[in-house]
């Protein structure tokens, strides 16, 4: 494939003997701008959840409920603070016969999808992502569990990737 704009390549942090890692894979990473998209999403859901919980806690008036709300707030805070690392852990690689996808730090997930298994490719853009010029690419197979969603791709990259994937799938077409 040709140049991929600002999409970074290389190893993904953190790697160590004590973690899952697949050797000899040249991972492509998603745009760092995706961190903003992710954080905005978490902040919105944090505000809504904590707002609702606070109102409930105010009317119940029990200190224990307020404890619960603050625990929730801490969890949200940690999640938001870890976003940059989590986004850095997202990677994909186009190998000879399959698309390899990874994400997650605490819960690591690697998925390999043979190109011939592609049923369709979706490109989605949320409002914040669109403002930053990012797209999300979804690779759909006949199995719902596949769940390969590559977020934070530059729009041009996403479209190029889609075309590449479709072409690859066409050349390796298989039944169900």
């Amino acid at each position, binding site marked *: 494939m040709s140049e991929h704009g600002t999409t970074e390549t290389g190893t993904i942090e953190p790697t160590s003997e004590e*973690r*899952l890692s697949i050797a000899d894979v040249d991972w492509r990473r998603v745009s760092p701008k995706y961190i903003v998209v992710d954080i905005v999403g978490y902040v919105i859901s944090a505000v809504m959840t904590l707002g609702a919980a606070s109102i409930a806690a105010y009317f119940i008036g029990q200190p224990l409920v307020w404890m619960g709300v603050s625990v929730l707030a801490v969890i949200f805070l940690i999640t938001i603070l870890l976003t940059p690392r989590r986004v850095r852990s997202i990677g994909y690689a186009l190998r000879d016969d*399959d698309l390899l996808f990874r994400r997650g730090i605490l819960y*690591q*997930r*690697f998925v390999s999808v043979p190109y011939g298994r592609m049923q369709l490719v979706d490109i989605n853009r949320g409002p914040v992502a669109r403002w930053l010029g990012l797209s999300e690419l979804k690779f759909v197979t006949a199995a719902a569990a596949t769940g390969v969603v590559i977020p934070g791709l530059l729009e041009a990259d996403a479209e190029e990737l889609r075309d590449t994937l479709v072409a690859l799938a066409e050349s390796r077409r*298989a*039944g169900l």
Partner: protein
Amino acid sequence: MTTVPDTGFTDGEWHRLHPLTPLLKGGIAFVAILGIIIVNLRDIVIEVVFGEFEGDTEPLVWLLESGYLWLGVLAVIVGLIVFIVGFWLSWRMHTFRITDEVVEVRSGILFRTNRRGRLDRIQGVNIVRPFLARLVGAAKLEVNVAGQDANIKLEYLGSAAADELRRDVLRLASGTRVAAAEQAAVAELSAGEGVVRSGLVEQRVTELLAPELDPDLAPPESVVNLNLGRLIGSIVLSGFTIFLIGIIVALIIAATRSPFFLVGFVPAIIGMGSYYVSKFTRSLRYSIAGTPDGVRVGFGLLSTSNETLPPGRIHSVQVRQPLLWRPFGWWEIKVNRASTSSAQGAAGQANTTILPVGNLSDVHKVLALLLPDLTDAETTALLERGMTSRGGDDGFTNSPKRARVIRWFSVRRNGFALLPSAVLLRTGAIWRELVVVPLARVQSIALHEGPVSRALSVATVRFHTVAGPITPTLGAIDRAEALQFFRDSVDAAVLSSTSDTSHRWRSTERA
């Protein structure tokens, strides 16, 4: 022109369904309504004749008194005509055709629908004969393609025509040339001609009593004989029964305090009874046999169902042994498949249950039908170890000892084996289970590691297949082994999906 059994349906022309279709589909209700009206009229006639009106406010009586009788009669007649014309029209407009490439149905009077399925995408062909339809010699044929509610229904066809049509559809789907199919059909016809014309009643009776597998295609014997005792035993020793016993105990305890409270549970008890009965009758006359066009599963006593799964349509197979079945050595086989049929399977379960209950030798026979690649002696032994082995070094790569924390009893048994065309996942020491995933059908493969697994240096491998009762997952595998397994099975999956030709299962033979 319509459904004469020896008309070839596969000539690419449009054909109609069985003439009794409207009656079987919705006409029964209409007949019932008509019956109610007639019964009502009879009462009125009696009342009129004996001249004793009781001043009823019934609409029919009111009509009679008010002198608008002719209007009422007219309305009924018009209604009748509209009904009959409607049914007749819907039958006229409901046509289907089968070409070399597709099976197509068009129907509807005002809102036309047209459904077309590609023959090489067929996931299964199902013939269902509800009791009433069986009595008049009709059958429902369902061609399943992948997807939710993606069935092409031919409702209803003549019983013999349905069998013939299924054979032709499967033959076309298999990639055999049409000419060869026609030759075979002609030979078939001349052979069976003398039998069919022996009186309508006799024919009905023969069809009603005939075994579900039509003898010219399947080997006449089902490979598995489900004996009555085992069937009853398997139903009684189910998880539902344990649940039921729990409820009954709770009820008895409650009833010692206030017995009247039990009355409210009578409908529930009747419901449970009918659950057992229907489960039982649906599993009766179960049969499974291999045909050149796939595995054929039939069952049912009054309403029968008979389904053919062409080769390469099975996305994963699970052999499972519920705890209560263990003393008897019984197993159950389920599959994942890409289509969902509206018809239920054996034992009133979803039609993903291929073998409701069977012993080890039954399981081997059924597995040989479902997975024809895995029939050599070595693999059969491996499969058996996958089911019954207590674990250890027996061809499977098992969990490391340190994984005992998350696999208390099954750590020795929990493992995998990678064959060239399939993976075997063995789990559970108490609820024993073996999942076989044909690699040519795997959609994607995932490798997971969460915090607990990481602390133990183990990982989880998941095989993604089409949705179904089985989720092929194997956890608690040594990290390095899991990585190697992941890589190897990815390579094997790519390799077997490119070499797989089962969507046109006969084309290779002929070429």
